[in-house]
């Protein structure tokens, strides 16, 4: 019906091509399955593989419980209740997103370790010495679960809140009229309706957990991810390492497919013109303070304490001058974050629309595959990008030397292109989920109505889709922006000469065990990251309102 303007065949081919291009690192990793790795596997199976598996499993399970417990109640409370500080908590609860996981791990270790101020004070006050008392160890599996939950719950909070805000009062009223109490309505109406959003938030958090290297490595926990690097660097067997990575990816992929399969028949569209915004229920007495406490807890532990510790270090100990070179770091970080966020959003829009316009299992599969990068450690992505582009560069160079006697050098892998490409691979999933959730709000009926009223496809896009999706697009931009700001491993490997970022700076000092000195760069990452987080929250609140106005 839209042949003249859209040229579906070309579109479809384009979508398929870019999805597969973005999945290139995944293919590279899987291609190692055909390389024999031999003895190393026998060694791994005999010694450490079971540890890798069980630790990763517990980590992922623990973080799943953690982010759900922290994310959903806070999202619900800030949506339906009125209590002191509600407007503040709406955005402040997103703040932990600005703190890189390995940094929160460092700060809590500094605070709570045996030699740290908290235990030191306890010993001084009670006159205890080592062995007289039991203090929970931060650098443990449980500690890692806690650290990751604290910085990753905002994904669940953000997406479930957006979904709660988008739900109509009439649905809830129907539940109440049918005799269900508020709790029952929450569990049997609200939560199931929000399920796709909750699951998306959860899967983002868990993919990030699996890709985490900094935290678990610092805590001395052998997980699948640390195992990949140990096998690669320590045992010097890149094939076996890639095979481990392929195994990890397969598990993630199966989980994603299962989740999609489980809700393949569920399609929620808010229909009917009787949309009314949820009125807020004002809380009184102890309940109101209980809710305040509920919101204060993740904010304090996930943001105030670590940021406070960084601030203390930055003021008292760090030797960092805020000179021209430091500003340059900020500039580089911003440049990368802004370009990567824009590119990733455009790619996500292209793929998201492609999937909507041409629903086919093959296309859907390709798009899923291209979003796998989020579960893969940045270093693996970086190598997966480096190998094919390095190869391509050298082939082009050979060819050009032969034909023209000219060396073209490293066209792709020697420039920022390769870094931006790696970011796109790594963070497409984040953009894509925002775009897809935005697209899901635009019901097919609306397209049809607009078309039957004489709108051309292009003006459907401009007049209906864009206004309705503005919030989602904005979220996509900001989330990737913050993620790139925090990103370390790919940046470290792929950046050009003399090009440092805040994350690189913070990492170099921290990995040299100068935690306090790294605090200025870390704090700057947090400060720069806070701005988009605040904007993000306003966008979510407003898109809920706009939705209410527009229907």
């Amino acid at each position, binding site marked *: 019906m839209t042949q003249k303007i859209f040229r579906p065949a070309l579109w479809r081919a384009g979508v398929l091509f870019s999805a597969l291009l973005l999945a290139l690192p995944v293919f590279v990793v899987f291609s190692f399955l055909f390389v024999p790795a031999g003895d190393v596997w026998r060694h791994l199976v005999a010694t450490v593989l079971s540890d890798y598996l069980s630790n990763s499993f517990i980590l992922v399970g623990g973080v799943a419980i953690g982010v759900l417990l922290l994310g959903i109640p806070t999202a619900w409370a800030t949506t339906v209740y009125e209590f002191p500080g509600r407007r503040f908590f709406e955005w402040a609860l997103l703040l932990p997103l600005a703190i890189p996981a390995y940094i929160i791990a460092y700060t809590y270790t500094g605070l709570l370790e045996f030699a740290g101020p908290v235990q030191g004070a306890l010993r001084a006050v009670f006159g205890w010495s080592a062995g007289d008392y039991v203090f929970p160890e931060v650098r443990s599996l449980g500690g890692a679960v806690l650290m990751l939950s604290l910085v990753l719950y905002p994904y669940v909070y953000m997406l479930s809140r957006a979904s709660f805000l988008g739900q109509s009062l009439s649905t809830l009223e129907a539940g109440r009229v049918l005799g269900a109490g508020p709790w029952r309505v929450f569990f049997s109406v609200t939560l199931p309706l929000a399920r796709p959003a909750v699951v998306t938030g959860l899967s983002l958090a868990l993919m990030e957990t699996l890709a985490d290297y900094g935290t678990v490595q610092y805590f001395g926990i052998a997980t699948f991810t640390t195992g990949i690097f140990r096998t690669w660097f320590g045992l010097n067997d890149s094939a076996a390492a890639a095979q481990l990575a392929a195994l990890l990816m397969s598990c993630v992929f199966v989980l994603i497919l299962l989740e999609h399969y489980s809700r393949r028949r569920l399609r929620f569209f808010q229909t009917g013109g009787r949309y009314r915004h949820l009125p807020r229920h004002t809380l009184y007495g102890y309940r109101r303070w209980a809710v305040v406490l509920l919101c204060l807890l993740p904010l304090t532990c996930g943001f105030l304490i670590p940021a406070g510790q960084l601030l203390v270090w930055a003021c008292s*100990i760090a030797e960092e001058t805020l000179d021209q070179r430091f500003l340059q770091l900020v500039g580089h970080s911003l440049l990368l974050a802004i370009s990567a966020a824009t*590119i990733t959003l455009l790619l996500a829009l292209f793929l998201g629309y492609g999937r909507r316009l041409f629903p086919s299992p093959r296309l859907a599969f390709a798009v899923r595959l291209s979003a796998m990068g989020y579960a893969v450690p940045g270093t693996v992505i970086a190598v997966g990008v480096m190998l094919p582009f390095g190869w391509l560069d050298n082939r082009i160079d050979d060819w050009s030397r032969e034909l023209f006697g000219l060396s073209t050098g490293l066209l792709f892998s020697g420039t920022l292109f390769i870094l931006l490409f790696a970011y796109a691979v790594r963070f497409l999933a984040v953009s894509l989920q925002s775009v897809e959730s935005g697209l899901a709000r635009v019901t097919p009926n609306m397209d049809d109505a607009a078309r039957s009223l004489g709108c051309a496809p292009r003006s459907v896009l401009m007049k209906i889709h864009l206004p309705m999706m503005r919030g989602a697009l904005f979220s996509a931009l900001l989330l990737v922006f913050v993620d790139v700001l925090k990103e370390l491993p790919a940046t470290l490997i792929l950046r050009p000469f003399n090009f440092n970022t805040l994350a690189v700076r913070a990492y170099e000092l921290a990995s040299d065990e100068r935690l306090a000195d790294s605090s200025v760069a870390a704090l700057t990452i947090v400060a720069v990251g806070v701005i988009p987080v605040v904007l993000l929250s306003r966008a979510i609140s407003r898109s809920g309102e706009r939705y209410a106005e527009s229907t």
Partner: protein
Amino acid sequence: MWFKSAASVALSVVLGVGSVGFSPAAAPEEVNLYSARKEALIKPLLDRFSEQTGITVNLVTGKEDALLQRLQSEGRNTPADLLITSDAGRLYRAKEAGLTQPVVTDVLLQGVPAAYREPTGHWYGLSLRARPIFYVKGKVSPADLTRYEALADPQWKGKICIRSSDNIYNQSLVASMIAHSGAEQTEQWATGLVNNLARSPKGGDRDQIKAAAAGECDIAVANTYYYGGMLSSRDDSERLAAEKMAIIWPNQSDRGTHVNVSGAALTTYARNRENAVKLLEFLVQPEAQSWYARVNFEYPVRTGVAWSDLLQQWGEFKSDSLNLGELGRYNSAAVMIMDRAGWK
């Protein structure tokens, strides 16, 4: 849409490249460096080199394995002329992968003793990093702990702190033991050591010293420059912790204390070969050599270079004269042994 995104990729690449000023074509007054030594631990020296010679040094820092991978995938088009790592095992690996080329000059031969360079000139050590044993003053009698081997002695059960076996310094230490006394004996030793650990390994070298000072264990294994960094830290708690500790130089009556080097190699496809050799030679000059000790408490590879006061306080010691290439050769065997011993 696709064109838009393609155009924006192209645009940001152009902008990015423009702002970085990176050009793959080599200009004569440049040298390009891939360094696993952190920026703070190499840049001041490079700046000094540029001042003296007028040669611009372009720098990418990163983890050594990643840099090796990058060199490998860039092949003959790599812009890197010189590779600096913070351990000898990786230099061995770079040579094995054909990523380095030999260079022999009088200056280099004079500057670097034979144990700390590759015999044919594929790489040269720049600074020594010793990994001795530390103990809490008053809690341990140093006479009971004169060798690394003694760490496996049951009398130290529950008294030792050491970091994870993921760490390259532990891998190198174990590799050196394999080179000296064979895999079987080393595995027995590693198992004994694991039985003596006060806690499951976690944190870095400084954390082991801190834990010992706080009473969690009596003995810690760490590289000296972390100890030096703590002693001169602006953080009071770190300084106080370090002051409670003292050094044992192990194996003085036999092979010597385990040392590793940070070192440099000329890449196979170096385009600025001449400048790279100049830089390499600069890095082994007495001036640069004494800088490592002043700034990061490392020991110069060059003999006859004055040590800083702190290093002199710690005393002279006999270091292991094993050629450091061996550390690379036995690295994966070391990791396997540590896996089997249950060293996390």
